[in-house]
């Protein structure tokens, strides 16, 4: 499904400020894999997602998605294959447009026609899909997204990202800016949609518990390199303490990561 070879991204290459955000990364994911990625700030997690989504082009290395090379493909074309949810709920939805209009935008990706966007048939479909979220959004189709709560907006963003069955779903700390109750709800929604649609997923998170609970594979990034890769079988036995042990083995001290987990 996803294959990444020698992926490297340097910022300001050739200058004294050169920064290697992703360093010679190799990764292969099979269909239906749910990968969680942890790492401290600056570990290269978001850059890694940006490279896959085509927001950035790598300095070196190649990316294959569903058998196609997408290394140099611009973001809007990559988007045909990629569904993405950002950390801030505001980034995944258009605030001045209604819930139904936002969902229309997610329907057929880049292929926009001159058909009227919100029709009766689609409204029924949207109601059905929104109903599954269990947030009462199915009755607020014509409300502007700006009037929704952060949690509701993020749920809508998750639905929009998965509506067209992307080849891969990228979740970039998508519960990090929500309060614990909403974060839990969004996580449930995500789990449900991912398992229902059997989506191949990469979830970046700060939260070790989350990373352990979800998915069938976990990797840890540190300074752009993969320092730990726990796959099926072993992952079920993983605990926060074991992860911290792995951390200290690698001689990585990161108070932030430990603190956020111990809360």
């Amino acid at each position: 499904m996803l294959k990444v070879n020698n992926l490297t991204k340097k910022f300001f290459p050739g200058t004294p400020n050169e920064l290697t955000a992703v360093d010679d990364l190799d990764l292969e994911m099979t269909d239906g894999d749910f990968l969680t990625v942890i790492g401290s700030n600056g570990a290269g997690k978001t850059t890694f997602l940006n490279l896959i989504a085509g927001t950035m082009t790598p300095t070196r290395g190649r990316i294959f998605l569903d058998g196609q090379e997408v290394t140099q493909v611009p973001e809007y074309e990559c988007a045909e294959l990629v569904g993405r949810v950002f950390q801030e709920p505001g980034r995944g939805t258009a605030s001045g447009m209604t819930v139904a209009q936002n969902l229309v935008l997610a329907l057929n990706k880049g292929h926009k026609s001159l058909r009227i966007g919100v029709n009766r048939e689609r409204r029924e479909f949207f109601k059905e899909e929104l109903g599954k979220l269990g947030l009462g959004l199915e009755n607020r189709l014509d409300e502007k997204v700006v009037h929704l709560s952060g949690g509701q907006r993020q749920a809508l963003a998750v639905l929009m990202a998965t509506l067209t069955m992307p080849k891969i779903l990228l979740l970039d700390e998508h519960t990090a800016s929500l309060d614990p109750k909403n974060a839990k709800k969004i996580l449930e929604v995500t789990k449900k949609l991912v398992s229902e649609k059997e989506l191949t997923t990469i979830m970046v998170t700060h939260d070790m518990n989350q990373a352990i609970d979800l998915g069938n594979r976990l990797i840890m990034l540190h300074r752009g390199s993969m320092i730990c890769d726990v796959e099926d079988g072993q992952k079920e036995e993983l605990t926060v303490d074991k992860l911290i042990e792995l951390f200290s083995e690698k001689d990585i001290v990161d108070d932030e990561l430990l603190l956020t987990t111990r809360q």
Partner: protein
Amino acid sequence: MSLLIDALEQGMVYGIMALGVLITFRVLDFPDLTVDGSFTMGAGITAALIVGGWNPVVALLLGVAGGMVAGIFTGLLSTKLNILNLLAGILTMTLLYSVNLRIMGRPNIPLLGQSTVLDQFRSLLTPIGLGDYSDLVFFGLVLIFLKFLLDLFFNTELGLALRATGDNEQMILSQGVNTDTMKILGLAISNGLVAFSGGLVAQYTGFADVGMGIGMIIAGLASVIVGETLLPTKSFIWVSTGVIAGSIIYRTAIMLALRYGYNFGFKASDLKLITALIVIVALATPQVREKLNLKLGESVGI
């Protein structure tokens, strides 16, 4: 009465231009200053072709095409060369001044004695006794038709994608839409409307002048803002209605100022000053109101 009719006529013909400004400033969130140049371009192409013996309808449509090209040019400067959007518009506006002079061949083309779209329409309405109101009817029909088309367009998938480009570029990009194309499309439609307005104004006033577009963007913006103050809802149908009402109110205000302003010592040459002041007042109103409300609230103890 005749003042009211004049104001309505002008409000509607310039309302087409204001709809164009609405698309860039509000829908796309792209402050496009091409308008001053593309308005003149529409007028210049239309007038030059009419004088050259072309059918006025064809001349007008070619003027619209010229405006669209100008919009596309600004769009390319902004998206492909990454020139700041304000500057991209100013650059196009500046170069259009020379281009318009080239097209027109001289700074002013009078259309006296030429058959215009408005004359043709008048000859249709005269038999049923509406000849005196033919300009009013014509501009009204054209404006309503264009508004209807726009309302429809901004509810299509493509139109929604264009709105989303102005609302949240990152979001619509990750939904697979090429936002560069959307911006260029929006600028083309906007400047096409502006040029259409210019082409009609030339036929209405009986001349095209290379300086007729100066300050047009401010007039358009004034209409948009007045409209928003009138109808502060956000559904596109009401926004576009508000802009048209805004344009009529704005033109009425200008005409009153021109007619009675001399009583207060105004001259015709003060028009741009007054226009800019109107826009400043309109822009400041919501903020002043908010501060007043806040103060009132404090004094009442809310």
